[in-house]
């Protein structure tokens, strides 16, 4: 390998490493944010939500009993509505499992609604899957 080429590669590798350590981490896209070991929504509680996320939070708060019933039944229009707020993840089962886990682990409806809204905001820059 020519010397110049090797030094260029090394410089590139250093630059990539630096970028990875200094830049803000990219949002978890696809279904990664719903993975069981995902860190969850990064936004701090009380942080400003986008208009869409606020709309979703209000929906969850207002309809949480029907949404809860849909989550138990694993189907229904309330579940569809919340799932459709995460179009970048095409795997409905992964989303369902995350919603169910979130519901089971939160006793306060407001916390549950906020968590879903933050989850939505944390992925709003994600590209939609190609169909």
């Amino acid at each position, binding site marked *: 390998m020519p010397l110049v080429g090797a030094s260029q590669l090394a410089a590139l590798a250093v630059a990539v490493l630096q970028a990875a350590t200094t830049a803000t981490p990219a949002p978890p896209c696809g279904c990664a944010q719903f993975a069981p070991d995902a860190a969850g929504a990064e936004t701090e509680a009380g942080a400003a939500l986008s208009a869409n996320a606020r709309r979703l939070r209000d929906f969850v708060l207002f*309809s949480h*009993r029907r949404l*809860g*019933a849909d989550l*138990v039944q694993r189907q229904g229009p309330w579940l569809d509505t919340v*799932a459709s707020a995460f179009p970048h993840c095409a795997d409905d089962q992964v989303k369902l499992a995350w919603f169910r886990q979130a519901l*089971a682990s939160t006793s306060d409806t407001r916390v549950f609604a906020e968590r879903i809204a933050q989850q939505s905001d944390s992925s709003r820059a994600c590209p939609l899957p190609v169909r």
Partner: protein
Amino acid sequence: MTLLHFVALAAACLHLCFTPAPAFAASLHDDVARVDAERIDQDAQWIALLHYRARRDGSLESEADSPQFFMAGQGKQSPRAELLAAVAALHAPEERQGLACRFPARYEWLRARLGHDGPDSALDGCPALSVWLAGFPGRQASIVFASSYLESPSSTFGHTFLRIVRQSGNELLSPTINYAARTEARDGDLAFVSKGLFGGFPGVADELPFYRRLRTYTEIEGRDLHDYALALEPGEVRRLLLHTWETKDGIFDYYFLDENCAYRTLALIDAARPHAGLLRRFHAVTVPVDTIRTLRAAGLLGEHRVWPSVPKAVRGLEAELAAPDAAAASRIALGQADVATTDGLAPQRQAKLLRLAYEYGSVLIDRDQGDRVQRKEILGAITRARLAQPAPAGAPGLGPAFTPEDGHDGGLVAIGALRRGGRGLLNLEYAAFEHTLADPLPGYEPHAAITLLHPSVELGDGKLRLREVDWLTVQSAIPSSTLFAPQAWRVQLRTARRQYADGEHMATSLAYHAGKAWQLGGNLVFSVLPGASIDTGSGLPHRAALAGVLRNSLGYQASAWSLQLDMVTEKYIAGSRLRRQALQANAMLRLSRNLALTIGAAQRQSPRREGELLVSLRWRQRSLRLPWEAD
């Protein structure tokens, strides 16, 4: 050229002289000439957008009550004056933007109708309109009919509103357009009724998302919502929205009987599709379900979907469970037993039981029964237990099999042969609105009845005589169950020919009954209704009397036929010492949606013994329609 015509032309010319002229394809003069040549002021779309209706003398008058709805001084009475004012504004740059922002539907239609098809950005210059329109991302619309309350037969007439449909999967976020009266808290009952009947409440439209309506109607009020796709083109939906913007804030007074929610909703659809003539049949009274029938007849209704009443769905779930399981679900929902008490049950049985407990607990919260915080904690515990289960409780329950417009029309005309005391008579009946517990069910809520203005006359021996006027009867006989124990009740105001010691006399009575009903299996319901009746009439010694009444009924209501047996015992406790007993049976066979055959028999001891047999053909007609009124 009329004076009005001249003034409009002169006003526009003045504007054109002192402001830079925009590049219009046609001049004001050309457009005014076109308006007259093509009688554009009589165009169905213009008539619909301005809400002109024909008066008795054949002239037109707009239903809009706010002067701000008109650009011309005579606009309320003159479609032509209003149109010329709009055309003049279209050609006057200073007024044009105002026309576009205040009356965007008129503006868009008029431009298209006059052939102004060049590029135009006037609507883009309306920020408030743009923000409002952004809340309606869909280009399809549906109309939603809210059926009656479960325990309130007086809501039989229903309610309608519009939904602007978002894409599939997101439909609960769809915005709705709901027209209602803006009432004020300081209005007392009398003012409320008076303003509702004679005008005084401004009619306003609000735009809450559909899930909020679902919560109100299906959960809190326990009503089914029937959602019908409207066969409107995207351009028509846009016109509907733009016209809603023009009329949404106090343009019309609200009237309970005629210009109500259903009428205004239909008028919005009429503005979108004026040639369908949707409003033609509505004059004195608008019954919401009749507007649905009109849309069906005009071919404007598409796919139908039911959002079922939550309390009714809970009753359905309860019926699927054995009584001990329903009782266990009740105890869990009420906090009298722990969720863990179901742990030993088979998974499917446990799933159904917990589902019922959850839904029942949810209804208790909606009805504000018990401590709200405690109820929510119980629901949370049930939810966590259900989420831990391996399988759900099965498919959700289905909605009603029939749509509201499948039901018979509300009005009634009946002719029958009556035999009483060995005499044959002709029996004639009319009702402004009637649905009884003896009517077959399709399209109506079971166990609820309402009759409004129902006179019966007899013709025999060359004489016509009034037999009875049932002014108002309202009855609810919802059966009790393990979870629910609603009161069965009945109120009736009627004037009837009744037997007294010295013969027959007319008497007016007001009766109220309250008791219980039980389901004996299938559609068979037994009710016991003790009550009291205040009677007035010349047959009573003191012209007034108070009676205790016991009414026991056995009813069977199905889709093709129904049967009702009543045993009524009446004993006066003040003003008379009379005692009456009656045993009556009515069977009704549905021949078509609006035609039924009824056979009735009665045996009375009041005080003389008397038997009666009636065979009658009952024809249904539009609610509150008079027999001589054209449809």
